């Protein structure tokens, strides 16, 4: 699996979305499943999947799928 596929999977798992749900354009709180509670589980899922530890500011900034891609780049995970 590519990094991009792994990140999409992490989003679907954490937000409890169907296996084929498109996630690349998801934004925090635009999708009803991505609320503040799900956000913490999303962060934990991404941390486990990519073996990183995300800082507080980045947890707050992770407001869309695209932001997650950018932030993971800071931790040396090249999502493409």
């Amino acid at each position, binding site marked *: 699996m590519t990094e991009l596929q792994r990140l999409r999977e992490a989003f679907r798992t954490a937000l409890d979305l169907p296996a084929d749900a498109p996630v690349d354009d998801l934004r925090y709180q635009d999708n009803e499943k991505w609320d*503040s*509670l799900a956000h*913490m589980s999303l962060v*934990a899922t991404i941390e486990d999947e990519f073996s990183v*530890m995300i*800082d*507080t500011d980045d*947890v*707050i900034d992770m407001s869309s799928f695209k932001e997650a891609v950018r932030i993971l780049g800071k931790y040396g995970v090249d999502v493409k």
Partner: protein
Amino acid sequence: MSVFTLSQADKEARLLDELSTLTDFHRANCEPYDRILRASGYQGASGVAELPWLPVRLFKTLELKSIPDDEVFKVLTSSGTTGDVSKIYLDKAAAAEQQRRLAATVQTVLGPKRLPMILVDTRAMLKDRRSFSARGAGVLGMSTFGRDHVWALDMDGQVDLAALRGFLEKHGDQPFLIFGFTFLVWLHLYEVALEHGLDLSNGILIHSGGWKKLIDQAVSPEEFRKRLSGVGLTRVHNYYGMVEQIGTIFLEGPDGGSLYCPDFADVVVRDPETWAELPPGKPGLLEVVSTLPTSYPGHVLLTEDLGVVHGIDDGEWPGKRFSVLGRLPRAEARGCSDTYRSAA
């Protein structure tokens, strides 16, 4: 990276400027607020204490917002003791900013890394994810600063000793975060740690929620700190904040015993009869000011809490140091909101 940096003079100059601008903005965009200010005869302020305040209770009776309906992103509610509910309206920008400022404030004592975290509460708090209580929302907000969270209480509200032991085995030898409401921390963490010999010496405790229940048990804030240090918990930070000024918290400094104001906020203590500002050492009614309320006129609020300023620019962090002493007895608070109700 601290938000406790400005001396009182620098802070007041900056706040006067920003809060005056906010006052004008809210007048132009919130009709009931403008009506209140017209009735009060406000013509501008030459000091922070001259800015026009709203009694915090007004958010329970009036819809106060400075943004169009279609820009409302979140409505926060708090239930008061009487069952009245404050409604606070945030747009996207205000919601994001309050979270950033809260994070910056808490990171002053935690640093940028998320720490393993004990939540002194029960997951049952979040069962209905559509409507959390104020307590649930507080716990969830704080959980952002932690990772590998463990709940100290099980679904029935009983202490989960196995979970706590497991957490300490895994994380107890490095800094970890503990968050909870003051009374729950006392009852469900301190007493349990004491009884079972749990080592909390690497913990950093952040707690809030008022002292009333503890004082009923004859536990003063000083006693609380002293007893917690007995189970190794020496890094302890109480905070004071309210939903009507979401994102702004007044945080107890490393020295303990006083709350400090972040750079974007301040407190004024007022005589409850004359409304005049009181000097350090004199207890009175607490007014809280903050530049964060941009979507509703909550930037200058008179609370129903009593407080006292202990000193100015004389503590571990600059600015005012103060304590909250408890709630103003209900009858005494009536005068001020009645004035405003007739004006509104």
